[in-house]
Structure formats: C-alpha cells, structure tokens
C-alpha cells in the first residue's frame, strides 16, 4: 500500500476546475514531483494534501486513513512555503522549536532536536540569528529544518527554490537530494521548473489543466513523452507534426509539411492517414557540413539561420529547404575550434529513426 494515496480528487473554483479527477499513489521514502505550468492545479493539489483546501470530490489517504476530517494542524504532513514564511519575531532557534512546542515536547528534548535539525541543514550555530539576518538560501534551510524537526510522514515543498538565484538553486538541489536520502521522509515537491524536476525526482507527475498528463521516472518523461504537451513542456523539443503515411515493420513515416517524410521507430497500431507527431530532441540531431558518408534514416538539408552560443554547447536554428525550422544542438568539444557553423552555412541534418519518439494524436 502506498503511503499517500490521492483518489480521484477534484477541486473547482466557480466554473474553473483547478484539479480534475487526479489519482496518484506516492510511496514511502519517495521524492515525488508535481510539475506543470502555473494554473495547472499542482499547488491546489498540494494545499489539499496539507489541509488548507478541501477537495470537492475524491479522497486523500495517508497510511490508509482518510485525512478529510483532520484540520491542517492535526495532519502529520509539513509544508515548506514558497517565501519561507519564517516567523520574523523569533530567532532561528525559536522558529525551529515552534512545532516542537506546539507538540508539547519537553524543553530539554526541544534543545537537542533543534540542534539536530539545524545540523541536518548545515546551520549549526545559527540559532540566535533572526530571519532578517539570513541570506535567501539560509532562510530556505531554516524553513526546511522547521518542517523536518518533528519527523513528519510527508514533507510538502511548494516551489521552495523559486526565489533563489541560479547558482544557489543548483547547490540547494544537491542538498535537497542528499537531505531526502538522509532523513528518508517522503517529499512531495511542486515546481514549474522542468530541469529542477528532472534533477531531483524519483518520479514526476506532469500536470496540465488539472489533469495528470504523464506519471513516470524523469528519464522516461524526457525520452518518451506520452503527449505533445509533455514533449513540449519538458526541455526543448522539435515537434514534427503531420499525417502518418506508412506504418510497417516498427517504422512509422510521418509527412511533415515544409520538411518531408520523417521516419521514426515506433511500435504503434496507428493507421496511415491519422495524425501523429515526432518528438525530436535537438541533441539527437547530427549536423554535417557536407552530405554524410553513410546515409541516415532521416537526412535533410538546410541553412543555419541563427545560433545561441552557450559555451559548452551551441544551439543552431536551421531553416530547411522546405522552409521548416529545426533546432539542433552540438557540443563544442572539437579540439581547436570554438564552434562549427556560422549563420548562412549550408548544413545537413541527420538522425536515425530511433532518435525520434512517436506520439499518436
């Protein structure tokens, strides 16, 4: 039995359905992420687990017990809020001690537990500081220590890293992974940042318009998106859409306007004539200055119309002969060169049939 079960939960605000019949089963010790654009219902779902919002339909079970009758203060879940929500009139020690005091813990235990929690988030010795004396990253760690000090069954994190700068965010991501491994508490993490979700999670539920679009491990979400929405939302992706012209021997051919026929390896029942899409990651495309010696399954010619130099890689925007646009990425790893192509260069784009991922519909 899963630790946290969300069964057919629905939440409406007037005419707007924020969460529409979502069912999820989250295992003990899992780092689970709800990922989606703003307004997809992920925060509403989190607030319902915490008890700040009440489902219009469905049930939320923790260890098999329906949480409906429990107010937020009586649920064994804790939340790390987006803007930390530290109590400004209490020191770091006072903040972390707060849930212990609410639970009527003995003063001697409070001291040792607070010290332990601050140690876990690498803030030992910061007890006497006030929140306004801390940096953003430190505030975030106090919020996490405060939420973890009572050892809840589930920790809910609502975009906890959104307010931090990029460098710090990466550091905190690594810390979060380690912390979660160390304490072994189930994390339910809400974010709109797909790189964060991919880096942190054991499993991701990609949400859109109140539905779960796909529930899978990060690598599967990235490589095998089940819907066009997921393909488009996670990372950058060339979505080559068109009618299916052939489907035989595990190879589907899609006639993409402005490009040509794209072949993709797929075990699909789809009949010719139906619409399909090929999701193709920029890094799976090989760019050549001249026609490749061995012809690939897919081979198109085009002109570099733009590029973005990232240092380690360069992203090229290629306009194909038919006028289609394709994004291709190549590593700047060749010795003695900064990058391979300039704007206006004629290039060949090629990729094997197995590089793309076919999405029916």
């Amino acid at each position, binding site marked *: 039995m899963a630790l946290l079960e969300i069964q057919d939960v629905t939440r409406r605000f007037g005419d707007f359905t924020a969460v529409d019949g979502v069912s999820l089963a989250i295992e003990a010790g899992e780092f689970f992420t709800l990922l989606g654009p703003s307004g997809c219902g992920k925060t509403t779902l989190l607030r319902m687990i*915490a008890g*700040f919002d009440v489902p219009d339909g469905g049930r939320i079970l923790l260890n098999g017990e329906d949480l409906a009758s429990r*107010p*937020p*203060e*009586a649920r064994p*879940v*804790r*939340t790390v*809020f987006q*803007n930390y*929500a*530290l*109590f*400004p*009139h*209490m*020191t770091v*020690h*006072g*903040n972390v*001690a*707060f*849930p212990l*005091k*609410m*639970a009527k813990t003995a003063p001697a235990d*409070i001291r040792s537990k607070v010290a332990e929690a601050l140690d876990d988030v690498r803030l030992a010795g910061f*007890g*006497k500081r*006030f929140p306004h004396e801390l940096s953003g990253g430190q505030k975030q760690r106090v919020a996490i220590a*405060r*939420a973890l000090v*009572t050892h809840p069954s589930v920790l809910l994190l609502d975009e906890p890293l959104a307010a931090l700068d990029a460098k710090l965010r990466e550091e905190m991501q690594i810390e979060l992974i380690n912390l979660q491994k160390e304490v072994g508490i189930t994390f339910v993490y809400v974010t709109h940042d797909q790189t964060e979700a991919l880096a942190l999670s054991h499993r991701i539920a990609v949400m859109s318009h109140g539905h779960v679009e796909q529930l899978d491990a990060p690598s599967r979400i990235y490589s095998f998106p089940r819907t066009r929405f997921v393909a488009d939302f996670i990372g950058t992706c060339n979505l080559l859409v068109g009618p299916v012209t052939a489907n035989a021997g595990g190879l589907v051919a899609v006639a993409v306007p402005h490009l040509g026929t794209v072949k993709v390896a797929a075990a699909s029942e789809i009949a010719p004539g139906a619409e399909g899409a090929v999701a193709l990651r920029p890094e799976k495309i090989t760019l050549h200055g001249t026609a490749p010696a061995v012809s690939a399954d897919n081979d198109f010619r085009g002109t570099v119309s733009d590029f973005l130099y990232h240092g380690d890689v360069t992203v090229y925007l290629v306009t194909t002969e038919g006028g289609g646009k394709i994004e291709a990425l190549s590593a700047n790893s060749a010795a003695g060169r900064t990058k391979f192509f300039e704007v206006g260069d004629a290039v060949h784009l090629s990729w094997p049939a197995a590089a793309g991922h076919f999405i029916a519909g």
Partner: protein
Amino acid sequence: MRRTGTLGKWLVSGPPIVYLLLFFAIPALIMVLASFRTPGEFGGLAPLVDEAGKPDLNVESYVRFFTEPVYAQIFVKSFVYALLTTLICLLIAYPLAALIARSPKKHRDLLLLLVILPFWSNFLIRVYAWMIVLGPQAALARTVNGFLDWFGAGPVPLLFSGFAVLVCLVYVHLPFMVLPLYANLEKHDQALLDAAQDLGANAWQRFWRITFPLSLPGVYAGAALVFIPALGIFAIPDILGGPDDSLIGNVIKQQFLETRDWPFGSVLSIVLTVAALALAGLAAWIGAHSTRREASGA
C-alpha cells in the same frame, strides 16, 4: 548644487522647527521657570526680581506637592483611570481592528470611515450626549436600577460617577486605539498563519504566538495615543463626574483658572509630564526585554 540642496532642506524642515520652538519648547521652559516662582498676590506670578533686586526663585510649590498627600492620591487615581481606559480600549479595539483588517478590501475603507465618523461632531457635544444616555430618566439607568431593585439593592446613579467618566473616556479614545492596530494588523502576512497552522498551532496558539507578538508595535502606539491624553483630560470628569471624580487634569485647570496659583499648577503639570515619560520609558524597556526572551523560544 550642494548649496541649493542644503538651502532646500532648511526651507522644508525650518518652519516646523520654528513652530515647535515657539509653541512647544519655549512655553515648556516658561512653565519650568514659573514652577520656581512665587504666586502673585492677586493670582498669576509675583515679579521675578523682588524689591531688594534679588531673583525670587524657590521650591515651595514642589515642597507643597510632596507634603500634601491629597495630590499624590489624585495622581494615582488619574493613572488608574488612564490605565483602565487603555486596557478597555485595547480589549474592544483589537477584535474590531482585526475584523476590519480581515474584511474584503472594498469594505475596509467604509468600516474605517465608520470608526472615525464620531470625530465629525464636536468633542464636547459627544461628551454631553453621554449625559442624556446615562441620565436618571434614560432607559439605561432605569433598566439597571430596575434590575438592582429586583435583588433588593438600592438604586445607583449612573451619571456624575466614576463609571460615567470611564465609559466616556473609553468612548472618546477608542478610535485612537483602533487606527494604529488596524494599520499594523492589515500588513500581517497570511502565509505566517498558514505556516503556524501547518506546524501544529491551533487558532488560539496562532493568535497568541504569531498575531499578537507581531501586533505589539500597534498595541504600543495605540496605548500611547490613548493613555497620554486620558491622563491629562479634564472636560470629561468636569461634565460627567461627581465631586469626588476630579482627576489631575481638573486640579491643574483649577490651579491656573480658579485658584490662580500658577507656580503650583506648573509643578503639577511638570510632575505629570515626567511621570508619563517615566512610565512610557519603563513600558518600552519591559517590552524590549520580554520580546527578546520570547524570540529565542525559551
């Protein structure tokens, strides 16, 4: 550029400084000087320099204040009234301010307007209105006394009593408590209360541990705005109080206008000011120390 900047600064801050010097600092100093002088034969002050050409300064008025216990008693009574007024105002104003701060934004201005609406009528008219409300023939007094009669207790006068003074003091000063409390409570972040609830605090704990400590600046501001004017008030005891309900404001007014003993009136005013300042300082000190203790979660 720098010169005009300095000039501009003086032009802006000059007039209020001049105003305060002329109408606050200098009169206060005149009062301090007056407290050491001798009352004139027909009231006012005796000449500063006597016939022998020596300055006529003495501490007799101070000696009188500290040797006649009746004045100290009135002082204590005035402090008790001001303190009660402040506490009752706080108890009434806090829920009211919280209610306004939590009501929908579009209603808040209207509710605030209703709080300050009484200011649109004259202060004395509002005080006199209480004479009618508390008068012996009014419904209130008749109900109360009818009730007391039921239990065999004698009728009590509501008007011209300490009760009437206190009721009116609270009524008049209530908006001064509501406004700073509202200004404070309105800024509170709902996320903090959500966090407290998430961490296991029930409604009372959320109020006592989060809302109330964070509202203390508003409480202090409101308490000062109520306590200090209530301490020096004379119109309300004059109009609604009985003969035994004179407060220190009445005595000071009496010394200046009726007894015409200006030095003694000055002494009473100075002692009142110093006592109020000392009390405010003490309150600030206690406040600072108790917050520090609470903050560390001790």
